């Protein structure tokens, strides 16, 4: 299945591309050509009206106001995209919908190119991250770690292990790096563990973040370019509940202020590109990233180097 996009805003386009591989994992997809069209954009609406009877279009909006057969609700979420792909794969396998009409080459209407997955890209579905992204209540066993109970409805993970996300031990790191083939899962309901008093409770976000950070190993999520895609952090991650080190705090400080490529970030901060990529992936998976190709203002710093050195000496004293 080849899905192109039309009239999507930058953020939506990148989120769509990045989530597509994850959502398509495990589905048998046919060789259909589809176009995801943002019908809330003037251009997209025009395109929809002109082509919806002759091409296979997926309407993208907050509401299905055009009563489209294929519809993806805004904002893009993995679970919704997965349901749509499932529906598309089932339908296209049984009763093909209108055959796609090739797009006239002279009309540059389709913006994106077919999605190609680079060999070294990070595919969350191959790791523990993919299990968390399914939003299913399950019990996980992996890497000799105590069972982990995931309850998405309560936004919680529970385990008998007291985890300090600031200082993971090697056993915990191994668990967070676990590949899908090493993971056993069992279905779970909240009632199964309701009477347990020996469990520590953590936000799912802490685990989603940790598994992505630990298993990325310098490989970037699909659809993002190290030296072309400019990104911005929507807000500071809550580091108090997330695995982090000082490099991540420094990256957050610059990423909330400036729209930069991952390569520029590594250059400016002198932080290894692998660390920058791992951090980016974790931020992306926890929905903290905004794609922003605008040029950031390069205002003169309001702080002096003297202030910075005082803060550093405070930290030296405290750490």
């Amino acid at each position: 299945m080849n899905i192109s996009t039309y009239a999507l805003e930058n953020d939506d386009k990148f989120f769509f591309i990045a989530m597509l591989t994850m959502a398509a994992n495990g589905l048998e997809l046919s060789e259909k050509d589809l176009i995801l069209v943002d019908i809330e954009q003037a251009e997209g609406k025009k395109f929809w009206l002109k082509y919806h009877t002759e091409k296979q279009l997926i309407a993208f909006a907050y509401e299905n106001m055009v009563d489209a057969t294929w519809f993806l609700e805004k904002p893009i979420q993995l679970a919704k995209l997965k349901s749509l792909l499932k529906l598309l794969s089932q339908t296209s396998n049984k009763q093909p919908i209108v055959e796609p009409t090739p797009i006239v080459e002279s009309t540059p209407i389709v913006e994106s190119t077919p999605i190609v997955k680079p060999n070294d890209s990070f595919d969350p579905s191959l790791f523990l991250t993919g299990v968390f992204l399914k939003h299913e209540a399950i019990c996980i066993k992996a890497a000799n770690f105590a069972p982990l109970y995931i309850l998405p409805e309560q936004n919680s993970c529970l385990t008998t292990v007291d985890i300090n996300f600031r200082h993971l031990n090697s056993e915990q790191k191994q668990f967070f790096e676990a590949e899908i083939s090493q993971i056993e899962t069992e279905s779970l309901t909240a009632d199964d563990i309701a009477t347990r008093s020996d469990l520590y409770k953590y936000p799912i976000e802490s685990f989603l973040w940790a598994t992505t950070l630990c298993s990325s190993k310098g490989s970037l999520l699909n659809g993002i370019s190290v030296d072309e895609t400019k990104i911005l952090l929507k807000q500071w991650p809550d580091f108090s509940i997330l695995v982090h080190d000082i490099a991540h705090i420094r990256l957050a400080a610059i990423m909330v202020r400036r729209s930069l490529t991952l390569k520029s970030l590594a250059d400016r901060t002198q932080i290894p590109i692998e660390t920058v990529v791992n951090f980016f992936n974790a931020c992306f998976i926890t929905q903290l990233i905004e794609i922003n190709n605008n040029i950031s203002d390069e205002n003169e710093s309001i702080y002096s180097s003297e202030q910075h050195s005082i803060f550093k000496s405070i930290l030296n004293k405290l750490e």
Partner: protein
Amino acid sequence: MKEIKLVFTGSMGAGKTTAISAISEIPVINTDVRTIGEDAQYKKTTTAAMDYGELTLDDGNKLRLYGTPGQERFQYMWPIIIKGALGLIILVDDANSHPLKDLALFINYFRDHINKIPTVVGITRRDLEQGPNIQEYHDYLHKEGLKLPIFSIDARQRDNIILMIQALTAMVEFN
């Protein structure tokens, strides 16, 4: 020797005195009085003038740690304490009845300073799960045009206070 000052402000009972104690090398000097009004049901005494702690840096300079009084009736002390501060830490008690209003009070009052010195927000007592989720605090700041770090913290934990100072340091480095 110059005065290097870090200020902890925030709602009553948010943990300002505790946070200063977590990193001060001297016992925190405070000026507690009996709490009055509605707040008295939550805390018997509160800081009247300020909390004060110290940390001697390697070059001999002293970092002075000041905590503002939490109750609004002692607001007259706030401008005195904030003057010349290197950084500001705002603590909000998540288990208080209106934590977002509390945050708004301190953001509005210190807005001019926030524009000039690095500022971080620490939300305490999140474990009680009584207050808004962390996103609601961010949403409020975004409406105010601010992108400050917000961390769920335990004011008793030295690591948590260090995290806030690490964020202040990074903000100064990459402003």
